[in-house]
């Protein structure tokens, strides 16, 4: 967003909507597309591929690669939303997901019958989502007055604090062991943990999350959020409540992460303090950066690459060395394309079509 564009928008004397057009245009596509039919060929192709995929892939690939990538992608999507469009890098998104996962174990059924309350699954999940969303908003409220590296520090501190809380609390979080055998319910005669149903469950919520974020970014709230990202002081002068918008963004991101967290605990079938430990806080950031923070599609692509590497790197190279492959690929991607895989794609596209609109990456980490 160039200053000139801003000036134009302000000079046009428009309120939020006119500004919105200016903000959205370079973010989404070069030409204003709102009037055209938004469904395009590649949407259909991707959706068809996602639906056909589990029928051709083995149950293992469907479950471990497909479903896990989508669940992790959903959690990373919440970070992309916060970081790419709100300018706030929160390391605590996995913590929010972990809180949701723990709540499912605590309110629902698990192998730890002494702590788990055994309430109906829908009540447990609803409470989990509500509590985790509140926690997300609370983390936002704590960290929203900070900028840049300080936001990262404070959210990292919250994440590590939660990790140690889980590790040392007996009565609620069951210390080191956490909760085992946290499974999705058997509903309509379907075992939702079987690869095929579970994949479709995760696919549904991932698509819902994706379109929700896409919608939100074009809605006044999302546009104001991007305005706040680019110039909070000016937005404040325009009469927007900057802090409230940011906290709301954290709450929205918290909800998305909570949905991902519930799916992830069902995928793993267990949750332990390590599920929300430091390495996972960082992994979510890696996934988001790997895919690229310019578009809600980024985290899902990042998650697929991440999961593929985690699963198969050990087959490429011997024993102790396989982390080298993982690290090398991450390094190469970030080195050659600071905007992640999406940035790489955009650069290729720009090279072939010579369209000028793609040259300025917007929405990276700042």
């Amino acid at each position, binding site marked *: 967003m160039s200053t000139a564009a801003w000036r134009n928008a302000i000079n046009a004397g428009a309120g939020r909507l006119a500004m919105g057009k200016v903000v959205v245009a370079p973010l989404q596509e070069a030409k204003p597309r709102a009037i055209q039919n938004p469904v395009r060929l590649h949407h259909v192709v991707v959706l068809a591929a996602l639906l056909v995929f589990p029928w051709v892939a083995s149950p*293992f690939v469907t479950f471990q690669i497909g479903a896990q990538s989508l669940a992790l992608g959903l959690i990373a999507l919440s970070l992309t939303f916060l970081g790419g469009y709100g300018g706030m890098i929160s390391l605590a998104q996995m913590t929010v997901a972990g809180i949701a996962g723990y709540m499912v174990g605590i309110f629902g059924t698990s192998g730890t019958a002494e702590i788990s309350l055994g309430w109906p699954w829908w009540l447990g999940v609803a409470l989990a989502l509500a509590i985790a969303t509140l926690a997300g908003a609370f983390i936002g409220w704590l960290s929203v007055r900070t900028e840049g590296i300080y936001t990262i520090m404070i959210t990292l501190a919250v994440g590590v604090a939660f990790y140690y809380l889980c590790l040392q609390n007996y009565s609620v979080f069951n210390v*080191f062991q956490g909760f085992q055998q946290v499974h999705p319910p058997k509903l309509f005669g379907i075992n939702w943990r079987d690869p095929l149903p579970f994949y479709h469950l995760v696919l549904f919520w991932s698509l819902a999350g994706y379109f929700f974020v896409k919608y939100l970014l074009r809605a006044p709230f999302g546009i104001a959020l991007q305005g706040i990202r680019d110039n909070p002081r000016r937005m404040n002068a325009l009469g927007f409540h900057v802090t409230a918008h940011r906290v709301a963004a954290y709450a929205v991101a918290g909800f998305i992460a909570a949905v991902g967290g519930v799916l992830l605990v069902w995928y*793993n*079938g267990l949750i332990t303090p*390590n*599920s929300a430990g430091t390495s996972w806080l960082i992994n979510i950031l890696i996934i988001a950066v790997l895919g690229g923070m310019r578009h809600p599609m980024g985290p899902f692509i990042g998650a697929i690459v991440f999961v593929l590497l985690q*699963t*198969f790197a050990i087959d490429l190279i011997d024993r102790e060395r396989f982390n080298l492959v993982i690290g090398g690929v991450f390094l190469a991607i970030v080195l050659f394309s600071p905007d992640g*895989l999406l940035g790489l794609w955009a650069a290729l596209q720009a090279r072939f079509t010579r369209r000028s609109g793609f040259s300025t990456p917007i929405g990276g980490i700042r």
Partner: protein
Amino acid sequence: MRKRALVRTLVATAVLAAFSGVAYAQQTVKIGLLATLEGPFAAGGADGMRGAELAVKQHNGMAGGKKIEIIKASSDAKPDVAVNATRKLVEQDKVDIMVGPLSGGEGVAVKDYSKTQPNITFINGSSGAQATTLVNTSPNFFRFNTEGAQWMVGLGKAALDKGYKRVMVIAEDYAFPYSQVQGFMSEYCRLGGKVPVKAWVPLGGKDYASVIARIPKDVDALVVVLGGADAVNFLNQYEAAGGDKPLVGGSITVSQDILNYKGKRRDSLVGTIAGSPIADAYDAPEFKAFVADYQKNYPVSAGGYPSPSLFALVYYINMKAALDALDAVNGDLSGGQAKYREALQKMTLKTPTGDVRLDSNRQAIGSTFVTEVVKDPQGNLYNKVLRKVDGIDQMLGMKKEDFKIGTRDEPSCP
């Protein structure tokens, strides 16, 4: 697009690996091997793999007339990672038998996963959580190693023999030390010992000042169940605080790296007793042969330890069980591996530290050592075998209805 190409290569490799596996399934038996090659137990995991490989080498890579193919996977001691790695081995690489994982939490998670794969036989690696074979057991999960509580049997009596009538327990706050403390206390308390204070410290803690301040004057010794860096940190700080009480160690407390530590209190480690499934100085010929074979195959120059670690021994034992049972059924894995499992259940396994049988929960009944730190003429410290206890079952000699899994508060004798 190089990344895409890489991804494609990755997938293609995996698919090829899967297909080639099907083609050779007639002549080979695939065994998945899972240990921690990352995270806090990376060194132990690598040695565990050495132990398992040694068992395969001793079988010349054959068992039951079939070629053994080992497919390795790694985790980082986290249960979810362990299950992902196991799932890949079972569902993608199509192994027939699984050996692993290394740590307690992983063991419980893999055991839970094994229930969803009734056609595969799971054999433990070195995980030692009591609950794995006591709570919610799985019919196709076998454990040929004794676990944390069993390893401490005999130590309670040895402590009383040393004249320690009251002790304080200092242990890390998770399942494995609970088991270890239970194994020690159930015997110690029964024979009249008292444990007035138990201090549970977080895993990976750095500051032990508050714990050291809580040590009562009237205890005779400290039971320290800490591992690796935690143990070294505690010893250093206890030394700095002027502590002089003798120590009783857990199975991973008085390991070789602790004995090599250079603090002033080093000499005061002499006389420390501990319980362990392995004792470097055990002089039975089977054990000496095992150590010699390990040293020949994995010399220190090639990354091996001077003497095999606990993980090497335990992985060796479990892999040997997998191969010996294959021999016993001539490689017959038909009928959902029914014959193979029967062979596992009924076999008496010859291990370097004595014979091992399984109980009805498929858990080992075996031997363990009580050791004592002594100084050799060169001034090096090592663990001398004080006593070998045979035939320890998971109930620690108690009746089933009296037995409770160890926790923070169980057992208790203040």
